[in-house]
């Protein structure tokens, strides 16, 4: 792309403030969400189905298929959101695109290796209606996070007064994709693999939270709260399994 922002800086980090890393206004960011939403429609319907399917498959112990399904939206968002559009606005866009593609590759690798999957979650949900209780907070929290990312995230923007196509959708926009992935990973992975699979989604939640903070977006706390909840739950799961 000819008008992609050249990879940048930075030199002395003391020469920059948080606001220097957000070189666009809230209006431009909302227009970006809107343009991506408009140009992707009606793909939203398919990505929502895909998100729900990945969540259910992971819960039912079909983690490898779930990871394959999840890899597609990460790659799609990396290319269509970051590489094709966000990179016009921010030199870091290319790096974010790369990170999303790495996450997609990582998910495919997990699926291929079949490692790090938590068989406990699937076993308990099949064996008893109290499965979620037996698995405890990480599973319940994971399902809530995943459900929130896939099903609730699209209504946040419109409820905050944004236009319909500014609604952020799993598989179309990065924030719900990251939040839902955190939840799905919590449901079906464990150990080092779980931490590794959550690293990029967590980092993105932090970056987008700081970006929204600079832009003074009403929903700033949401990705940050999702990241904090995910870290608490993964710690809980790690300690429990130790």
């Amino acid at each position, binding site marked *: 792309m000819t008008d992609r922002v050249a990879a940048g800086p930075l030199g002395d980090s003391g020469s920059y*403030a948080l606001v220097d890393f957000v070189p666009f206004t809230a209006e*431009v960011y909302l227009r970006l969400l809107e343009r991506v939403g408009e140009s992707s429609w009606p793909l939203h319907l398919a990505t929502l189905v895909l998100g729900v399917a990945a969540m259910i498959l992971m819960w039912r112990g079909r983690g490898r298929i779930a990871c394959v399904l999840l890899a597609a939206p990460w790659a799609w968002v990396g290319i269509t959101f970051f590489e094709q559009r966000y990179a*016009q606005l921010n030199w870091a866009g290319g790096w974010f695109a790369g990170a999303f593609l790495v996450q997609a590759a990582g998910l495919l690798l997990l699926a291929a290796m079949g490692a790090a999957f938590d068989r406990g979650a699937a076993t308990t949900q099949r064996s008893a209606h109290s499965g979620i209780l037996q698995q405890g907070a990480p599973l319940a929290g994971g399902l809530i996070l995943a459900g929130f990312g896939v099903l609730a995230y699209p209504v946040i923007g419109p409820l905050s007064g944004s236009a319909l196509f500014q609604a952020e959708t799993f598989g179309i926009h990065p924030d719900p994709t990251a939040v839902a992935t955190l939840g799905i990973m919590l449901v079906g992975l464990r150990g080092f693999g779980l931490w590794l699979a959550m690293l990029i989604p967590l980092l993105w939640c932090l970056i987008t939270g700081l970006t929204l903070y600079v832009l003074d977006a009403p929903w700033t706390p949401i990705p940050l709260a999702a990241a904090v909840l995910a870290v608490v739950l993964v710690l809980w799961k790690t300690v429990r399994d130790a």
Partner: protein
Amino acid sequence: MSFTAERRRVLKLIAAGLAGGSLSPRLLLAARELPLTKLVASNGRALPVIGMGTWQTFNVGRDEQLRRACTEVLAAFVEHGGGMVDCSPMYGSSAAVMGFALDQLGRPGSVFSAEKVWIRDGGETRRQILGQAAQWGVDRFDLVQVHNLLAWQAHLETLREMKQAGEARYIGITTSHGRRHQEFERIMEQQPLDFVQLTYNITHREVEQRLLPLAQEKGIAVIANRPYDGGPLIKRIQARHQVPAWAAEEFDCRNWADFLLRFIVSHPAVTCAIPATTRVEHMHENMRAGYGPMPSQEIRARMIRHVESL
């Protein structure tokens, strides 16, 4: 405006010009409808005291709707005889959008193109500047600055060569948010510069102590960035307070844009301020601040006291 009011306005303009202590002797008093200008010491070009920044505001990518909105903002700037437009490679697509807007407006001659070099590799100075020039659609920039002192030694050396070769008219350095002032001062003392750009507004006046006097002493033009402290200053103050009546009486101050911008550009060392906006009505407000009489030294002190009391 009535004749009496207009006469009072002209008398204030003259009085402001004679105030001496508060205004640069280089200040030119313009007739009505002409913006107030100051001269760039190194070759005497007159620059309107209100320029425009493009940080965040012109970074809209290829969004046609927002590009047209940016063009309208630039049109308002040009309508008022606006001069300096400041941009940087750090500002994403701003240079390309500026090029688009200039094309739409038929390349207005009043625009003074100010760019920056912002890259760690000191050997890439010329390449980056040429890339930015291609986006603006200009052969050369009026001013090229080293952004945030990044790799400044190497960049300044190349910029001096470019200036000598006629590839840039002026050169300079920038900082913002009050960062690295000691190093900035050393560079101002040791390097030949036409311009410096720094943060100066009514709530951030640290540069009054050393950098602004040094710029005056060395004949370096000064661009004041973040005149509204990035926006929150004027938003906060406008939302809660009226412009004091005495300000209207003393220097025909009509709104907070007048108040805050005239405070900055009435400093004798400051050549221009570069507020940024996405809104045409705000651009008109900003530019009108460059037409009025300027506050005297005493009034400037009163302005500071007033803002601190809010």
